[in-house]
């Protein structure tokens, strides 16, 4: 049995074992994109390279067979630097949004496309859950939010922007009704947090913390919570909308202490004594530091909610003894602004477009389901399980290192159940090999060569016809979401939860 030393750990493996498998047996992580059990190694991504210490060469571990006496290292600085460069090359031609542009723009980071899909599928409880977790005050914001999210909506390329604000306002009606799931909290952690200020910032922080199972007390100097929102006229924001939403915060188990202004050090000291952490959600009471966190108010209500949520997350991390550091920056592939020609291009080549209903009237009469059906699903179908996103995050790959000259490819191919987005494809050929393995009659072909290489169905058949037996495996194996099911999202996290899943 051949022996191999990987990062100074020796292991004996069965003859014919690859270096990758040997490393996995030692629980040493080696990144891969194009490796899939049951198919021959593709040798495409070259991310799994390790250094063969006998020759000093980088070799792909997925297809290098262990030879007796081999010594390799998997994590040396230059090996990692080399992997990072390759990731940057792959990213340089990766056209797609990890998260939808609307979500990116929303200051409270509400997952808008998920809401759209829930509405479209008739899961209104689910939608209510999504909007309330995202915005805390979806009804209120449905009135007062300037809706920056509607600005970058890609639906504009086809007709007009999605009516996101109207939709979350309509959904919030449902949220305000009894919705047991919405008000569910995990078991009590026994930790208690004081929040100073009962405006939307403080209440947003309270929401997040209750949802983590912590006890929350809000100190509010006025008689009622709501802060600035209370001062708005009824035609701007009907009072009953606000009251109902504050009511649900209360029902979540948040303890409001009205008319309790916190002034001077004495009050604060007492609170610090009593509570495990403090969030300051009003001006000038205390400086952040230690167990004091700050949630900045903002004139834009939605931004204020966002700040409150962030402060809540930080305080929770503090309470869970996770070292509070700067948020790890998740790799985000972004299409960004599209040129007019690009929009036309996208419109022209999107085979999906027949299934998109045209825009309807706005307002309370808007048919939410029809409207939600217009959503283009700009967020990636593998935003959580995408291998490229995972490794790009881990290796800190830079997004725009190289200037490129090729035309950006926005095509969405497929009218049926399977969608293919060439812009997201890394050309590894896994799907081609899997289709071949299953003995598909049509299967997939690699077309062209070099940089212009792409995956296509031979003789212009559809993807649905090409992958009769192997679609599920192809979708699962695809390292990005280049091949995906139209209506199935792969949310099985291969990584820690992203910020968007708060």
């Amino acid at each position, binding site marked *: 049995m051949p022996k191999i030393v990987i990062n100074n750990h020796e292991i004996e493996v069965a003859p014919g074992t690859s270096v990758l498998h040997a490393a996995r047996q030692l629980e040493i992580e080696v990144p891969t994109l194009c490796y899939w059990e049951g198919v021959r*190694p*593709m*040798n*495409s*991504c*070259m991310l799994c*390279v390790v250094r063969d210490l006998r020759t000093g*060469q*980088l070799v*792909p571990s997925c*297809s*290098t*067979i262990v030879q007796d006496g081999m010594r390799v290292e998997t994590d040396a600085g230059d090996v990692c630097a*080399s992997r990072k*460069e*390759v990731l940057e*090359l*792959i990213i*340089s*031609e990766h056209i797609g949004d990890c998260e939808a542009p609307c979500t990116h723009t929303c200051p409270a980071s509400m997952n808008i496309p998920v809401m759209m899909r829930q509405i479209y599928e008739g899961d209104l409880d689910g939608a209510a859950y999504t909007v309330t977790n995202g915005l805390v005050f979806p009804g209120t914001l449905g009135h007062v939010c300037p809706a920056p999210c509607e600005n970058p909506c890609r639906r504009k390329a086809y007709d007009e922007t999605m009516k996101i604000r109207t939709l979350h306002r309509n959904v919030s009606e449902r949220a305000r009704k009894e919705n047991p799931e919405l008000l569910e909290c995990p078991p009590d952690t026994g930790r208690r947090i004081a929040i100073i200020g009962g405006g939307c910032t403080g209440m947003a922080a309270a929401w997040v913390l209750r949802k983590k199972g912590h006890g929350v007390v809000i100190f509010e100097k006025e008689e009622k919570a709501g802060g600035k929102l209370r001062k708005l006229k009824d035609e701007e924001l009907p009072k009953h909308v606000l009251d109902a939403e504050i009511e649900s915060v209360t029902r979540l188990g948040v303890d409001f202490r009205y008319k309790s202004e916190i002034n001077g050090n004495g009050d604060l000291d007492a609170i610090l004594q009593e509570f495990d952490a403090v969030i300051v959600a009003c001006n000038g009471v205390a400086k952040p530091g230690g167990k004091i966190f700050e949630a900045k108010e903002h004139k834009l209500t939605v931004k204020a909610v966002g700040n409150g949520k962030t402060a809540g997350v930080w305080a929770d991390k503090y309470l869970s003894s996770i070292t509070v550091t700067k948020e790890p920056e998740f790799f985000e592939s972004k299409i960004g602004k599209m040129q007019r020609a690009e929009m036309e291009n996208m419109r022209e080549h999107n085979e999906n477009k027949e299934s998109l209903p045209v825009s309807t009237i706005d307002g309370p009469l808007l048919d939410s389901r029809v409207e939600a059906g217009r959503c283009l699903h700009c967020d990636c179908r593998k935003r959580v399980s995408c291998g490229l996103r995972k490794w790009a995050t881990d290796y800190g790959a830079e997004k725009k*290192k*190289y*200037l*490129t*000259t*090729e035309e950006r490819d926005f095509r969405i191919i497929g009218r049926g159940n399977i969608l293919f987005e060439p812009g997201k494809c*890394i*050309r590894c*050929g896994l799907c*081609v090999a899997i*289709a*071949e393995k299953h003995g598909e009659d*049509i*299967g*997939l*072909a*690699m*077309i*062209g*060569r*070099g*940089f*212009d*290489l792409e995956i*296509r169905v*031979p*003789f212009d058949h559809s993807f649905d016809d090409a992958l009769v037996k192997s679609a599920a495996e192809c979708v699962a194996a695809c390292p990005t979401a280049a091949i995906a099911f139209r209506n199935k999202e792969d949310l099985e996290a291969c990584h820690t939860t992203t910020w968007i899943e708060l």
Partner: protein
Amino acid sequence: MAEALLATEVDSAEIDRIVETHGRGPEAVIPILQAIQSRYRYLPTPALMRVCEQTDITPASIEGVATFYSQFRRDPVGKHVISLCDGTACHVKGAEDVHEAMSTELRMAKGRDTDPKGEFTIRKVACLGCCSLAPAMQIDGVTYAHAGADSVPSILRDFKKREIAEGNGKTELHRKVRDNGAEIRIGLDSCCVAGGTDRIEVEIERALAELASDVPVKHVSCVHMCHQVPVIEIIKEGEGSSLYVKVREEDVSQIIARHFKPKNVISGLRASVLRWTEHVYGGVGSRDIVERHEGDLRDERVATFLGGQHHIATEHRGALDPASLDEYLRKGGFHALEKVLYGDYKGRILLARHKGGLPDPPPPGAGWTQQQIIDEISASGLRGRGGAGFPTGKKLQFVHDAPGDLKYIICNGDEGDPGAFMDRMILESYSFRVLEGMLIEAFSVGAEEGYLYIRAEYPLATKRIRQSIIDCEQAGLLGDNILGSGRSLRLKVKEGAGAFVCGEETALIASLEGRRGMPSIRPPYPAIQGLYGRPTLINNVETLSLISWIVRNGAAEFAKLGTERSKGTKVFSLAGKIRHGGLIEVPMGITINEIVEGIGGGIADGRKFKAILVGGPSGGCIPASMGDTPVDYEALAEAGAMMGSGGMVVLDDSDCIVEMCRYFLSFTQSESCGKCAPCRIGTMRLREMLTRLTEGKGRECDLEYLEELGKVVKAQSLCGLGKTAPNPVLTALRYFREEFEAHVKGFCPAGKCKPLIDYWVNDNCIGCTLCAQACPVDCIDSQPFKMHYIHLDTCTRCDACLVACPVDAIKAGSRTKEERELCLKS
């Protein structure tokens, strides 16, 4: 529109016939596609679908293969295909301008490659292998040499004239030929033909017919003096040999008349009358052409060109009839084979053939053992001539030792390096030598099946080798039980389909098996697991052509030549800005300077020697200052170049290194198979950065990125193509960094990068507006009697204004940003 008109109906019975001829297995896909394309000129989808119905070939495989190889076209083409060579030598001689001129001449719409009438389709080919006649192009089967941009209209005229002439039917000349010691030798390999020798031959035949002469005209192997073609050599008893170089059609009759007298009075009279009429009516001046074109072996230029050379692979250069097995046998051919089979040489094969039979079979145990052959080749120190320089003896040993009854031998004739054509020449001129080499190697490893994989762009080589195989089979030298020895070798020729990467052995095997030519990781090496998973010996054409010499003369003789680590000789194609280009075979260890200044006669046009590109797109530029670098695998690698397949392109001071790097990267990028990300995307990004530099849009950080990315592509690519693709850039950054830095500043020292060339008007301007009238794009502000101004954003750098200016007021050149600003202020 044009394409819709060109689409053809597909006859499925015809497709079935093609399938019948080539077989139904997956490995038949390339020959089937080649057959369909030669019938329809492109690959119509219904035809491919029919093939899938009739064979084991899957839709995925046929679509994948049809789009991988550049020979195949999925769209209809024009009546004629113009193949413009984009090899290195052609590139430095202005191939891009030729492409532009051709597109303009044929009124091609932007982004189209077929003219509106559907008559011509232009396609760029990696290399036609006529490097010393650059720039070259091929229209259908006709090759045109020295086809510069200005000669485009005349080439098209000539082609149309030929087309009409061929339509009318050729007039065949019949004349009696008798061997009386005299002969006229003419080289008829691809470059000679491109240089016009085929037309010269017609003239010679006509002149001889007029004289009623019985002197034979003999086709000989490559003459190597490609810079001097057309070359004819006249051998006459008592007179020795006379060599005529750069012969023109109109000179032929005078040359012939000088050596051969008419057979009878009447034909003599008729000949002289004909010559006189031609002289009077044909408008040919009465200049003494013959004197000017005469050269012989004692001529100094010819002597220096041939002097430093040593011919092993190209033994009997310019004297051997490449198509004649008998002549090959007379000149020592199959001597080595006889030695291996019988243990010694007694001219048995030659003698038996004279008597019209076969020699007695070798007695049992008489010949060399397999190990004896391998030991002999190992002792010679021969290393693979394909580029990497792996010891041939070691490779033979590996294949010999590999377990398995069925083993293959493959001759790698997929010479793809743009700027190298020695393999083509060897296959065309010394096909029997290659076959003899294959026989000996096959015996040594126990292979009984073999393939010759030859590039699609070498039709003559394929034709000759096919014929040679047939000749050898008929003579009992190939096939089963060769000369009764009990040993067999069955050879087949497979044509490539246009993919540089197929020169890589694992990609070549994939291609032979009927797959996309994508390399796979080694190990396992082909020596252990090659074609169809069997042990396979792959050798380059030139390596194979050296085997017979080594066996015949002994390993020690071979090892005497060359340096310590690199033995024997190497054939190079010497091209570029050199006075005497051509094929040269030199002993290893000769220095770059000896080649450039000695054999090549220095730089043409009195310019300065700047650098020499060795090893093509995988090699690098060695600067003139390192001219004493010896030609040796290790020395070249240390200098940042590579032996490669042996292309040498000389650059002078008017060539821009950055632009050359861009050219090479655009070559490797377009030839990348696309399997691994570092090569597929990395070469593209390198190419883009270099393109931006040549356009004056480079960023400071680009040089750093070039170096960084270059190293990554080199370290992480899967196969040799990617692993060597960054070499030209990395070497250039090592020797010519300041030239890159100048480009970042928007200045091209060589004045080659068009976007970096400025045209400006100086104080000499008299305001005559002539320049503005000459400008094709109206980019000159011209008020009469006022100083004119050239708008560089619209200027196409066509030089028309500079030529038109009567007072030398327009200057052109590359300037730094500061100089430009200074000029703008003044």
